[in-house]
């Protein structure tokens, strides 16, 4: 197998394996699917440009989560200084998924809460793992989860099951 083919196979492998994860994290952070699309592409391009030597699948997964969250945050920062006009054909996800109940409630949380809620409840990550990936502390993640649950409890009957 030549080098070019090996690279191509690696691209297929890594995107196929982590596409859903990256996209869903971006989706929880961004306002619409078009923005999530942009983040998705940016994150995988950053992976190509990265000089990081990944040792394990867990390493690459953690890197992708961290970079996705940071890329979303940077996108928030830069959006302050520009007016973004949403294209009419950019269908709001609420219209595409009218039956969604919990996702809209999670998306209405402050962004830091959305991140930990998603990683905890969807990616099934432990508090310690989330703290490591987000370069935060266990106490902060626990506190964010707790506040997020309280907010969700007010938005939804029953809330999200405590850990």
């Amino acid at each position, binding site marked *: 197998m030549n080098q070019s083919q090996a690279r191509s196979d690696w691209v297929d492998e890594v995107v196929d394996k982590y596409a859903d994860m990256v996209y869903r994290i971006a989706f929880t952070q961004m306002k619409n699917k078009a923005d999530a699309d942009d983040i998705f592409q940016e994150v995988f391009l950053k992976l190509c440009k990265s000089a990081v030597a990944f040792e394990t699948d867990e390493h690459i997964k953690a890197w992708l989560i961290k970079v996705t969250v940071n890329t979303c945050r940077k996108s928030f920062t830069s*959006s302050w200084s520009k007016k973004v006009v949403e294209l009419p054909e950019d269908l709001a996800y609420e219209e595409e998924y009218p039956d969604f109940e919990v996702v809209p409630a999670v998306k209405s949380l402050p962004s830091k809460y959305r991140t930990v809620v998603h990683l905890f409840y969807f990616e099934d990550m432990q508090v310690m793992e989330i703290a490591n990936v987000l370069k935060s502390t266990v106490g902060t993640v626990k506190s964010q989860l707790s506040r997020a649950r309280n907010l969700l409890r007010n938005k939804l009957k029953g809330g999200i099951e405590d850990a």
Partner: protein
Amino acid sequence: MLDKQYKKEMKQITPSQDLINRTKMAMREEMQSKPKRPLFRKAVALATVAAIVAFVIFSTNLLNQTNDIFFPDNLFTIRAYAMEIQPDGTIKLREVDISQLEGWTGHDDGEALFISIGLWFDFEGYNIKTVEFSLAEGFFATQYIGNFVDASELQQAYVGIDGRLAMYGTEFDKVGNVIKFGDVMDSDILLFWGSYGVRIDEWYLNPIEISVIVTFDDGEIYEQPLRIEFNVPGITTIEEWPQNHSEFIRLERPTMEQYEHFATAPLEDFTLIPESIKVITPTTHFEFYVGGHTPVTISIPTFPEYWDASRIINDPYNQFDENGISRVPMGIRDDEGFIVVIKLDADGVFTAMTYVVPLQK
């Protein structure tokens, strides 16, 4: 269970096949262009030719040059940015001098005092492995400015030379007396200094000392002290005022035109609230007074050298005019504006008072 419902719904969110295909194509293109390092090849070729022509004279210089280009020395720089509210309500970051605060803000939630270091920090350099900020006293608290996309949700105050420095929310993540970053700083983290059990009226604007320890890839350790001095007035919001002033009034932000009016119109045109007049000493804080409620206090520096009237008047960064008067626009409620005026007399006595400003129709 709603967590199962969340998973069920979220599993329906997937990237389109078109997006996946476009991304893969872009990645392949990126990887094909990556290995080229023409600059390096040119440098090596140049070095080879030069070595043949005059090996003894030039070889050392060329080697150093190549090293400078491809293997830069360890370098660390810290930068600070002030958050400014723009006339259209957006927030913009402006680079500022860390050693010269233009204004500061704080929040007293009844259990802890959070003092805004006023700034968004960022660092850059070469070969950085980790950067650690540590405090000898107090703790760090953080906020993510990414949460403040909608500036209307901010707890806002208007401090600084042009009264446009942004305030922040009132929820903090307490992270202890050490906060550590990798080779890049989280893109939008706001650092606050916190202290438990201290009310704003007990805090005397002591400088905050932060130690920044940088570890480079080669193991070299570099330490940079940061000293944040609060030598300009600041504003603190209070969640639970300890003296039965519990009602918080949200004041709206003045427009730039109104701000200009607050800052320049003759004081005689405004209405003084007589009961608000108070002499401020280094150990007192001025309660901003609006109809019996107390949303904020104004604090002024306590350093002995700062209490030298002539120094303040001559300090280009001070907010006092040639008559020793400083105006701090506080905001608008209904059809009235409020400003706090601090007067400094020749003996170095500060007197603060609140004025009501009729709004121009």
